[in-house]
């Protein structure tokens, strides 16, 4: 690897930081190091896959364009196990550029040997409990912080500083007390390219199409890179893949990946729900053509950021129907059913390693657009890990929508202490018989799981039929009191 030319006027670059170490496997396209030029800090990109054999240049060194900075063993050679030597920085490695000529002979400074270069200091990792809690409260991701406490420990000041900055940005994207920091906006492909989630996400894991790199499930399935889908909402649904059946015996001992806190919480709550709540299920099929057309019409009038999604329509329909079926909006207690004064719909949102259920309060106190806006806001906040505790607790009903993941129908687990959860599959075209004639129709399957202690089959059926009615006559979603 050489010091790359990164701009027509670049003569030399400073190697700011190695992002890979000797012995590390390198994929084509990986960033190996950060290079600082006069204009910017850019990444040194690997144009081949292989293994980083040796660093020829120390961090901080300034290197003319075209001079080697590291040795990259191509893939074949890299198959050999890495040697320890590879980890050593060559003795002849370039020292940080001397900023002055060497000391003149005879001066005391010249006599002793130069002290060894400072060892690379370890990345700061620690975080105080105080800082961690504070970060959780303030919606600051500790991983984004650079600790400035002892040894790089992240302390409360660091969190406060970050929170202040982020608040300043939220409040006003102008120059604040400090330096202006540009925060890029996320351009969601789903927003621009359509409703559907990224194409690869639609494919079920494990499905392969043959022996070609593109035939495999894409590399993008790692959770970090899973594109935030248009409505990327997941659910604690029973459709979640069952634990893998015992795999072929593997020579290495199985590695235990510890449960995250979120997974533990989900596990506890879902087990409790299934244990304590007598679930029963009912499904209806809804013709969605009208709703989809209605949505398109509506969106034509709306600014981009307020575009209504199918999910929004489902929230709306559920909320309106719940108003008429307060039992399903109630909370089971041993003493009796608590009737909740407002309809607060929780929406299951897939996040890394689990799901959150942000709540939209008082759904029926809002107009459709306002409701949608609020849904988008809380879903966005959930994805960004910026939900405040009171934004994900205390819903009266949950909607779980896996439609955009190509799921046809599924049933979900009630989110206690709620009474019911609605599971929505995808709207897809299929033959439909009307008056003895087959014609194409866009059909969506809705499945309600309800608590049998609170309600019974007929009430749930009526409730589902009301939702169906609302969705099939979508203008009712704007004004439910209109005659059909």
């Amino acid at each position, binding site marked *: 690897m050489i010091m790359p030319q*990164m*701009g027509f006027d670049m003569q030399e670059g400073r190697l700011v930081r190695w992002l890979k170490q000797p012995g590390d496997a390198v994929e084509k396209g990986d960033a190996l190091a950060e290079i600082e030029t006069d204009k910017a800090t850019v990444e040194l990109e690997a*144009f081949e896959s292989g293994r980083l054999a040796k660093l020829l240049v120390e961090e901080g060194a300034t290197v003319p364009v075209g001079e080697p900075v590291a040795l990259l063993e191509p893939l074949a050679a890299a198959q050999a196990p890495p040697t320890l030597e590879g980890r050593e920085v060559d003795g002849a490695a370039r020292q940080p550029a001397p900023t002055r000529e060497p000391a003149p002979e005879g001066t005391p400074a010249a006599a002793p040997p130069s002290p060894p270069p400072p060892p690379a200091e370890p990345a700061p990792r620690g975080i105080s409990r105080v800082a961690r809690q504070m970060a959780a409260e303030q919606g600051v991701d500790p991983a984004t912080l650079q600790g400035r406490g002892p040894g790089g420990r992240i302390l409360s000041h660091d969190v406060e500083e970050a929170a202040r900055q982020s608040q300043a940005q939220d409040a006003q994207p102008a120059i604040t007390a400090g330096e202006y920091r540009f925060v890029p906006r996320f351009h969601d492909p789903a927003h621009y390219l359509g409703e559907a989630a990224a*194409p690869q996400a639609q*494919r079920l894991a494990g499905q392969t*199409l*043959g022996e*070609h790199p593109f035939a495999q499930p894409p590399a993008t399935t790692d959770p970090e890179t899973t594109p935030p889908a248009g409505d990327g909402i997941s659910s604690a649904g029973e459709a979640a893949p069952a634990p893998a059946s015992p795999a072929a015996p593997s020579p290495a001992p199985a590695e235990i990946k510890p449960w995250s806190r979120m997974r533990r919480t989900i596990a506890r709550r879902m087990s409790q729900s299934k244990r304590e709540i007598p679930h029963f299920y009912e499904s209806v099929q809804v013709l969605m053509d009208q709703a989809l057309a209605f949505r398109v019409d509506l969106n034509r009038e709306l600014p981009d950021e307020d575009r209504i999604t199918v999910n929004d329509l489902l929230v709306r329909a559920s909320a309106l129907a719940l108003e008429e079926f307060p039992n399903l909006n109630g909370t089971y207690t041993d003493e009796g059913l608590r009737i909740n004064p407002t309809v607060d719909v929780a929406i299951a949102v897939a996040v890394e390693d689990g799901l959150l259920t942000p709540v939209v309060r008082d759904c029926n106190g809002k107009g459709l657009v306002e409701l949608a806006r609020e849904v988008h806001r809380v879903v966005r906040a959930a994805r960004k890990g910026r939900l405040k505790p009171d934004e994900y607790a205390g819903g009266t009903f949950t909607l779980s929508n896996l439609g955009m993941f190509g799921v046809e129908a599924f049933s979900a687990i009630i989110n206690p202490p709620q009474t019911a959860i609605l599971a929505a599959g995808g709207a897809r075209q299929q033959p439909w018989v009307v008056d003895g004639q087959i014609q194409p129709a866009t059909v969506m399957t809705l499945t309600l799981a309800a608590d049998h202690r609170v309600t019974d089959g007929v009430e749930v059926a009526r409730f589902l039929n009301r939702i169906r009615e609302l969705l099939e006559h979508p203008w009712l979603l704007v004004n439910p009191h209109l005659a059909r």
Partner: protein
Amino acid sequence: MGGGEGMAQANNPEPGRDGWTGWTPDPPPDLRDEPPERLLEYYRQMQVIRHFEERAAQAYTQGRIGGFLHLANGEEALAVGGLAALEPEDDLITHYRDHGVALARGSDPGRVMAELFGRADGVSGGRGGSMHLADAGRRFWGGHAIVGIHLPIAAGLALAHQYRKEPRVVLCIFGDGATNTGAFHEALNLAATWELPVIFLCQNNLYGMGTAIERAMRVTELHRRGAAYGIPSARINGMRLLEVRAAVASAARWAREGKGPVFLEALTYRYRGHSMADPELYRTKEELKAWRAWDPIQLFAQELLEAGVVTPEALRRADQEAEQVVEAAIAFAEQSPEPDPATLHHGVYRAPLAAALPAGGGNGVGAHLP
């Protein structure tokens, strides 16, 4: 309105003629209705472009390519799909992010690479470089590197067709940033007014250099800008090759029938920086990852595989062919000589300078040579 008599109306527009209707892009065809060889060729072309640009990037970091290098990784479907919809006698003009377009138009990869290397065998003789590729034989009128400059020129090319009553169209490709230049607005207005046969294909990759579209314009649905000039306009998914091809083909049909220009906004994304010196501070890695899930080549390959119209082996063969093509292009470019120094002053003008001038005194340059 419409018909082939656009010119006659140019000076006598009907009062109140400000609407447009009647055109919508064709939907993409079913894969299974396409000849598999053709689909495979599209795939191969996209891979050639992808490899070509990757190797160019590498050559750039090695200092073998100079100046600016603007890559279009992620936008291959637009180039290949868009040009698949053109006839050979149609015109093509584009902006500086032009490698893929040149290759998709059929320019020789070796000569394109040689141009990047600044060699005599380059498509522009080494005088143009990455931003200024052109291929007269393929009616490829150039990569133009001043943002928006080529839109009026495209209108003029179309005017020539209209003037001669030839059923040819001009495909004019430009970025989202160009839609903020004065030339864009002037060109759209002129083309609309005169019903010139131009397809304005806006490659909306969401950023003009590092400025996100919403930071540069209030109307970010760029097709609405076309509509503002009375041009039939549509937004399409630029990551889906067949969607691009179908839309451009239906636009070309419309223009060819003398009904005037069409404006297409193709949404796409550039996976690399604006140029090689781009630190990409203006977008997040998450965003880049999210868009990589829409990689047009991967998307196309998966659709082909799912539809069962090609085999993984065939794709792999195409991959290999693409790599071989690009390696050969590099080799060709490397062995190509530098331009002859004696040609420095050649071709500033096409006309020979007035013969009567005294030697060394006349043409405004000769006298100043050392």
